[in-house]
């Protein structure tokens, strides 16, 4: 199909942007779009208004930019007009009135408040600029769904979905995976039901913590693009309902851990919940030390998994916790780099806003710390010596990206570091699982003894028969 130019309008009052559709699938499939003046949008997916579905070829088509990652906002656009570009693509490249010229200005930092153009510049289908945009947009069939009034009636069918969003199910899943890692690496005996109960308890406490966080952050979340579509911000559930869910989940998780696992794991779970909701959430607006508190919160789940297996925290548990603690810094600092405008306006105290040099330094420092910890992990009999060498290329590449971010911090290096952190941790954990000491232990030799034997035995001189002299 020949490429055509769509003129998309976000909503009344926000200027249009032009999109070149290079490939178009069927009516409900993805469309590859290249937008002028911005980084190319990966993909758009279309859907029709539910009340127009009975029409064969809908006159109103909604597009949304598919967020390539969770940190970019999703915008909804409406096709206002379309013309065939033909082969002359240069004609499609006029300056778009809405996009900022500077490519270093983060795209997703521009919330509605920050667009300077507030004149409606809709182009009607016959080419004449439409002046009375507002009356057209008052029509509920023309407005996108997020600009209408909605009755606050609880939809029971959607309740599991709401609960999953409230508990930030993806983040909870990662927390449970790190707890699984802690359980697996622990030298105790592994029992399937204990494992299942421990992971359920950890998951439930994590759900409770995330829900309470969202209950108290409603006005702040409404200010930032990334969090504008959360369940409580949109009023899909009442705060009481969310608090009730958190209470049930948290108490079930804690009691489960206390009753069927051990008190240490339950204490760690409840402590983590308290740390996150009572210390980290308020501190986010008070001082930049919240990042350190949040890293401790991220480091506790493997301790919980380990304690669930052995009932106490040996040195290996602290190594695992240390790796997760250090990992949080490059992950979060790279993420927060691109959200500086939003954090500044919403009032969050983050290193990337108040002290960018510290932000970069700390990210690099902890990348190097991960490398050191992984190289010294075998000393605690957590893994074999192979782990120190197998993890080295991974950690060196991660530290290289951290160095790039330190040297020249811009959106691109921040994004690369953030994306790398997402696959770096699972790969590192997998490496660690493969190199677990008990899997390879034929004679149960202590790693420290093996190391000292190696060092003492390493001498350049030939062995002289001193006893013969």
């Amino acid at each position, binding site marked *: 199909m020949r490429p055509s130019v769509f003129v998309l309008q976000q909503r009344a009052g926000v200027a249009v942007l032009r999109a070149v559709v290079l490939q178009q699938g069927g009516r409900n499939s993805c469309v590859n779009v290249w937008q002028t003046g911005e980084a190319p949008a990966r993909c758009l997916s279309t859907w029709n208004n539910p009340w127009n579905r009975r029409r064969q070829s809908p006159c109103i088509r909604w597009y949304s930019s598919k967020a390539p990652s969770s940190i970019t906002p999703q915008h909804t656009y409406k096709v206002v007009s379309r013309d065939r570009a033909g082969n002359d693509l240069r004609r499609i490249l006029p300056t778009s009135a809405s996009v900022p010229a500077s490519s270093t200005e983060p795209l997703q930092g521009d919330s509605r*408040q920050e667009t300077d153009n507030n004149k409606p510049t809709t182009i009607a289908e016959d080419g004449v600029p439409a002046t009375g945009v507002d009356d057209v947009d008052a029509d509920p069939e023309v407005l996108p769904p997020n600009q209408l009034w909605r009755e606050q009636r609880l939809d029971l069918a959607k309740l599991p979905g709401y609960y999953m969003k409230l508990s930030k199910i993806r983040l909870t899943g990662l927390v449970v995976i790190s707890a699984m890692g802690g359980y697996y690496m622990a030298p105790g005996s592994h029992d399937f039901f204990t494992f299942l109960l421990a992971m359920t308890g950890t998951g439930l406490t994590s759900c409770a913590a995330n829900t309470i966080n969202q209950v108290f952050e409603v006005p702040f979340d409404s200010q930032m693009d990334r969090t504008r579509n959360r369940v409580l911000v949109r009023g899909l559930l009442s705060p009481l309902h969310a608090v009730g869910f958190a209470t049930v989940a948290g108490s079930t998780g804690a009691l489960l851990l206390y009753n069927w696992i051990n008190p240490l794991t339950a204490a760690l779970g409840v402590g983590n919940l308290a740390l996150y909701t009572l210390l980290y959430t308020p501190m986010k607006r008070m001082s930049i030390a919240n990042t350190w508190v949040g890293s401790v919160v991220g480091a506790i789940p493997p301790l919980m998994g380990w304690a669930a297996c052995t009932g106490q925290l040996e040195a290996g548990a602290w190594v695992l916790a240390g790796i997760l603690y250090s990992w949080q810094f490059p992950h979060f600092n790279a993420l927060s780099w691109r959200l500086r405008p939003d954090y500044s306006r919403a009032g969050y105290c983050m290193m990337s806003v108040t002290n960018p040099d510290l932000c970069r330094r700390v990210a690099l420092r902890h990348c190097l710390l991960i490398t050191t910890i992984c190289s010294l992990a075998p000393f605690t009999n957590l893994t074999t010596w192979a782990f120190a060498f197998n993890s080295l290329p991974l950690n060196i590449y991660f530290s290289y990206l951290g160095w790039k971010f330190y040297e020249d911090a811009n959106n691109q290096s921040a994004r690369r570091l953030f994306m790398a952190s997402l696959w770096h941790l699972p790969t590192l954990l997998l490496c660690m699982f493969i190199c677990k000491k008990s899997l390879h232990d034929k004679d149960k030799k202590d790693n420290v003894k093996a190391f000292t034997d190696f060092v003492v035995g390493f001498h350049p001189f030939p062995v002289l028969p001193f006893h013969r002299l």
Partner: protein
Amino acid sequence: MIRSFCTARNAHAAVRKTRTAGRRKGQTKASVPGIAAQPPPQSQMAHDWIGPADPSSNLRPIKFRVPTGESAAEERLRQLRADTQKWNQEFWSNHNQQFNKEKADFIRSWLEKEDFKSVHTDGSKRMPPAEDMSEFYRTFLTEHQHGQLQYQREWYKRNLYIIYLSFRVKMFQLVSKVLMRR
């Protein structure tokens, strides 16, 4: 044959489009229940209605339903929620206005420090690069931090009180429903 099929289909689509454009202007009622361009009048409201985000404060206004036979506790809760909503709206619209004003001032002073050219050669607006903007973000955050902390303290108190009152109201409603069933 394929080409004729495509052109016929496009022609048909074009005809339907012009036809439905006229029909669209006639029909203004959304056929999805629970969603409307404006909330219905008080007498027809069965629940609260939540609206689109206000452009200046980014908060979503809620239109509260005043039920007949509202108890004192329910009225108190509703008043508190309405008052908190108004207070939030005021705070954030002031705050965002302040942000936009200070940002515009900063960009203007940056352009003055450069060379008065506010538009690039290709017609787009000229904005300071990210390192310069981060200077603005830092000063804005540190200036307004005290106000933000006061707001946060007040917001936490109000939110906790709202949750507590709504818990009491909900319990009362449940108990009275159970008693009425009996």
